[in-house]
């Protein structure tokens, strides 16, 4: 049976309750009659022989590029950069896409007699990956061949000796990237696209860059002018990265880009009901739901967290393309849209969404309130093309427990940001001008970023800026079931139940508003006309 496309359901009296994510758990909510629910397309079939497809892509590159095997010769310096732990979500079942692709590349490199090879995790300002995480992403064979010899590196954006400044774009943006990557004879980038924001010139221009470079497009103004950053044509974030990417190419960095797309088969069989439309749940699905939700309710927080973060998704390769960045990325985007695009006509007054336990920045970690805001108002809000799903001045209602909890190892600067900066102000521009610099240059955060597993000191700011477009656009943000103090600290309104939230929303948008529910994950991209 071929996978069905996404569609918009209008709730009527026969519609069963809707499944809504609520952090490390889920609820069934009855949405008011007339609510539209946007369902994503069903997962499309993955490639039958991914390894063959990968080898084919390497031999038949797109755009102005020679096949990879001809680019590899003895005595050259090869660097292979790959996307870090923020992708894919949830983490894939073994073997990971990166493992498949890099093994294929290394087979060619071995055949070509290339001795000087270095692998770099393109972290940008994210946290370093732990050894088990690297093993999972790359597989044991690659890990054993490179890690013991110190050839498996993680990009260090604060190491001046390993950064090279390639120049300024015509908009005066600094382009400073990893030295080893820039000065190699060939740089191969292995990317995974789970949303339309990833990939393209952004892979190298952000993934291997330093704060000095990144701040040119990770700032409030840029984010407000990215409508949305899931749409390359309308995104100031991408325009800037494209400029930087072109400068990198002009500076002589030889890049062979390999991009992959995945289907949206994001949950294993036992949680299969999360993928299905509620009225199609079999008796088994209903039983699974009951069992899981009661078990999760009863278990202590630590246990549920472990359970969820151990989920390995069965999503698989739907396409792989390699060669010149821009040609490759066009093909990639077509494949992303093929899987994720849903047509929605018209905007709505109120947009509701249930937020899951995971976002790109808390893999194997706690989801703190700032990340909740980023996931809802940053990612989910911006998963549109054309116009936002909710009208200007409308209301977004997010469902998440929003615990006042932070992981001190992964997110130390987030704690200070939440306790000290947000206590003073939630205004984006004020935060940027008054506090960003001191957090970005604080020696303690730099130390933790470089030696521990901490996100960079400036990262919480970027999470806050990610919400800039939404905060500018919306009339109010309401969080259902969240910690009241945490929700208020961020400037949002707390509500105990969805019904209460809708009541509060009516103060802003008037009585009888139109409501749309964003039924994700699995991830989808709304094409709003």
């Amino acid at each position: 049976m071929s996978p069905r496309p996404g569609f918009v359901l209008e709730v009527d009296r026969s519609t069963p309750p809707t499944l809504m994510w609520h952090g490390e758990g889920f609820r069934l909510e009855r949405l008011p009659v007339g609510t539209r629910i946007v369902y994503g397309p069903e997962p499309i079939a993955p490639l039958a022989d991914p390894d063959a497809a990968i080898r084919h892509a390497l031999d038949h590159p797109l755009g102005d590029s020679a096949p990879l095997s001809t680019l590899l010769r003895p005595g050259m310096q090869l660097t292979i950069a790959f996307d870090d732990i923020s992708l894919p979500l949830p983490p894939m079942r073994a073997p990971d896409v990166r493992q498949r692709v890099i093994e294929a590349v290394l087979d060619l490199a071995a055949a070509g007699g290339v001795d000087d090879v270095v692998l770099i995790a393109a972290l940008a300002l994210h946290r370093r990956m732990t050894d088990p995480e690297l093993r999972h992403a790359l597989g044991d064979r690659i890990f054993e061949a490179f890690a013991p010899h110190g050839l498996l590196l993680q990009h260090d954006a604060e190491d001046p000796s390993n950064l090279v400044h390639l120049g300024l774009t015509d908009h005066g943006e600094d382009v400073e990237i990893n030295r080893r990557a820039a000065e190699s004879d060939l740089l191969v980038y292995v990317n995974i696209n789970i949303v339309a924001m990833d990939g393209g010139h952004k892979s190298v221009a952000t993934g291997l860059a330093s704060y000095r470079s990144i701040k040119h497009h990770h700032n409030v103004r840029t984010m407000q002018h990215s409508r949305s950053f899931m749409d390359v044509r309308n995104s100031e974030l991408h325009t800037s990265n494209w400029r930087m990417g072109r400068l990198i190419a002009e500076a002589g960095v030889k890049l062979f880009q390999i991009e992959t797309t995945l289907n949206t088969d994001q949950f294993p069989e036992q949680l299969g009901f999360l993928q299905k439309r509620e009225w199609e749940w079999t008796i088994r699905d209903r039983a699974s739901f009951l069992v899981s939700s009661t078990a999760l309710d009863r278990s202590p927080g630590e246990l549920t967290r472990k359970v969820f973060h151990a989920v390995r998704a069965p999503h698989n390769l739907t396409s792989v393309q390699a060669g010149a960045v821009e040609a490759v990325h066009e093909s990639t985007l077509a494949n992303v849209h093929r899987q994720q695009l849903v047509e929605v006509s018209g905007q709505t007054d109120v947009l509701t969404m249930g937020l899951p336990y995971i976002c790109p920045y808390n893999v194997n970690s706690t989801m703190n309130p700032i990340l909740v805001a980023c996931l809802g108002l940053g990612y989910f809000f911006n998963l549109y093309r054309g116009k936002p799903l909710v009208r200007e001045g409308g209301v977004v209602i997010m469902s998440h427990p929003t615990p006042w909890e932070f992981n001190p190892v992964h997110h130390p600067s987030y704690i200070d940001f939440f306790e000290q900066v947000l206590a003073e102000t939630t205004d984006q521009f004020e935060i940027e001008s008054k506090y960003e610099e001191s957090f970005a240059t604080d020696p303690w955060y730099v130390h933790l970023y470089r030696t521990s597993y901490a996100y960079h000191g400036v990262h919480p700011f970027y999470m806050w800026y990610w919400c800039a477009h939404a905060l500018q656009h919306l009339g109010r943000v309401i969080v259902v079931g969240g910690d009241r103090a945490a929700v208020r600290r961020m400037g949002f309104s707390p509500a105990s139940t969805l019904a209460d939230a809708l009541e509060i929303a009516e103060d802003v948008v008037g009585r009888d508003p139109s409501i749309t529910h964003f039924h994700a994950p699995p991830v989808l991209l709304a094409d709003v006309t």
Partner: protein
Amino acid sequence: MTRGVRGAVRLGGAGVRFVAERPAWPGGAAAPLPERSLGVDYDTAWARRYPVRLARAMFLDDVTRPILHLALSPRVIGLEHLDPVKGPMILAANHASHLDTGLLLSSLPARLRHRTMVAAAADYFFDRRWKAAVWSFGLAAIPMERSKVNRRSADLAASLLKEGWSLIIFPEGGRTADGWGQEFKGGAAYLAKRCDVPVIPVHLRGTRAVLAKSSSRLRPGATEIRLGDALRPHEGEDARKFAARIEHAVATLADEAESDWWSARHRAAAGTTPPFRGPEASPWRREWSLPDSARKDQRAVRDRRRRQPWSRDD
């Protein structure tokens, strides 16, 4: 007089302390340096006395052997090469794991394994008294320097060989770190020449996957022990050249283990046996081209096999 005796025997307060504790050495008396009798100087003669040999035989046969069989499921190939050899021999094997010694020893036929000693690295196995005792007992180990031939251990080995003891030795000098073989040192060759005993080359396959160097993880798996034809030094051949010949013999056995006897013989004849020490390339490429059986972690191997039901190697 009785009083005097009693007086002499009675201990005062200070006297009790003196008897209870070890006395301090007074400054005026010359003190000798403490004797060290560990490492190469450890005396293993006690382990070759009859009662100890009997106990070891029982321990080896009834405890060590069954346990190793369980963990390593060994398969022994080439035992027939031992038949023509009357008298003692030197068994030269490749070294990848701490389990090699026990495995090889317990795979030998009874007449050999009860009268075989093992050359063990003096700095590792004989650095503590209790360790020295354990290995001398369990494996009939004698201490040997890793890289150069120590006079004392060489003399000991030679005398034992003359008495009829066989010797297991790992000419690499230590376990392999990356899975490929290391250059064979001259110790085995030298002893063979000096005592006029043959050298049996041995290849151990699959022990690295069970317990690798610098790893504490033990994963039971299948192993193979291949024995080759006995080698004797040519007329006037020096120890170094002989050592190289022994290394090549082991390499041929390794080739046999990875492919089959016939193609291995072809390659040996043509001189294209894959080098024992692996390709001359960067560390990652050496790791990349390791045969599956020499890999530290078999998960990667199983993953790949699962993904490709038709192996590209076939």
